[in-house]
């Protein structure tokens, strides 16, 4: 069963908290991974791999560069999850 956007954002918040130590409540739709959440390009790979496992979705490397904000990622996951 597909996750709702709310569930996806909550899941991303847990992942970002685990990887970058940012409090889950600070992980909001408009936040940039790089500029606001201390997720550098290497850590972004970890976020993507964790999100793929959690939401059963494939995020090809070429698409990762378009995921600038939490909202970008949440939309991508909502659209592509099986």
């Amino acid at each position, binding site marked *: 069963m597909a996750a709702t956007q709310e569930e996806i954002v909550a899941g991303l918040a847990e992942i970002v908290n685990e*990887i970058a*130590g940012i409090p889950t409540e600070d992980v909001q739709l408009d936040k940039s991974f790089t500029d606001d959440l201390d997720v550098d390009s290497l*850590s972004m790979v*970890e976020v993507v*791999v964790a999100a793929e496992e959690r939401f059963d979705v494939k995020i090809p490397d070429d698409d990762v560069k378009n995921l600038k904000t939490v909202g970008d990622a949440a939309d991508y996951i909502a659209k592509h999850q099986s």
Partner: protein
Amino acid sequence: MNSTNRTVVVTGIGATTPLGGDAASTWEGLLAGRSGISLLEQEWAADLPVRIAGQIAVEPTEIIPRPQARKLDRSAQFALIAAREAWQDAGFAGPAGEESSVDPDRLGAVIASGIGGVTTLLDQYDVLKEKGVRRVSPHTVPMLMPNSPSANVGIDLNARAGVHTPVSACASGAEAIGYAIEMIRTGRADVVIAGGTEAAIHPLPIVAFGNMMAMSKNNDDPQGASRPYDVDRNGFVLGEGSGVIILESEEHAKARGARIYVEAVGQGISADSHHITQPDPSGSGIAQAVQNLLDQTDLKPAEIVHANAHATSTPQGDIGELKALRKVLGDDLNHVAVSATKSMTGHLLGGAGGVETVATVLALKNRVAPPTINIENLDPEADADIVRGEPRALPEGTIAALNDSFGFGGHNVVLAFRTV
């Protein structure tokens, strides 16, 4: 910078070792003659021929927050903890620049390890085999590269004068400190964070060293296993941890009113060019290093009252070192109190030169040499004044001490420090 022969001093020290989580507790353990060696109770150690090691007293993950720790190999975690302690001890508030009185362009970092991020490398290979390509951490390369501890310390404290990592097996930490002394002496930097670190307590290095017949297999008596100069010594005991010092030009230290521990007089370096792992039995390479130290610095043999020996508790190595010291120093070796602190910490490989420099600096500053423990029957070939059992007071006046480190590959590094 016109001056090319500036005086270099030590203004800060830091350590995390099997004896304690900082320099003070490590020193206290050394003076008390306490062994930091224990049984490896991890599941992976159960069937190994060697099941003892000097494991870190305070886990680095208790200090470094998890988001940062998970991007650092254990060796870099140790180095960061020791470097931050040394930095604070030197009286600096925050990183170089606005927060402390050091110009970042005049601050260097030279932290070495013998093996680098070996546990990261092996753990990630396990991940690759067991969980697949996608799960291998993107941080693997920056974690396992041997320059990672130095680079991470350099970033943490804002060092821009140069960040270096000399690699010479068990001489690495000492070579790093020697390199740092030269950076300041020749005018490349005013302050350098220098030392060594190692984190190699993992089944593969333990089995590999064990198969070389280099390690003690006294699993029944962990605390008595590291016994330099004892007739029954049968190999080294692996330790982990880091020791880091702050080196500074005397001019820079005095201008900011820093506390000066000792002068870093300089180094003597040589290579055996003999065998990749066996020390030259004549000790000529080590003797040449000591001779180079005397020829290339203003150190006087009469000043030397203490030596923190390399002495790893191997049958050949311990005696070869003493023979080399005798060859160069002659009767002047009679007034040198020789301590083998590896009897308590184990052998920290590339971290040894860092931790033992911290011990040497504190021995001079406090005028007391730490003991060598576990000598029940002194090897009659140990032709030197070995400090046994209890600490030994060192004389008044201007005194100097040596810190020896030698590494597989035939690397010989002898550092010298002197009271100010």
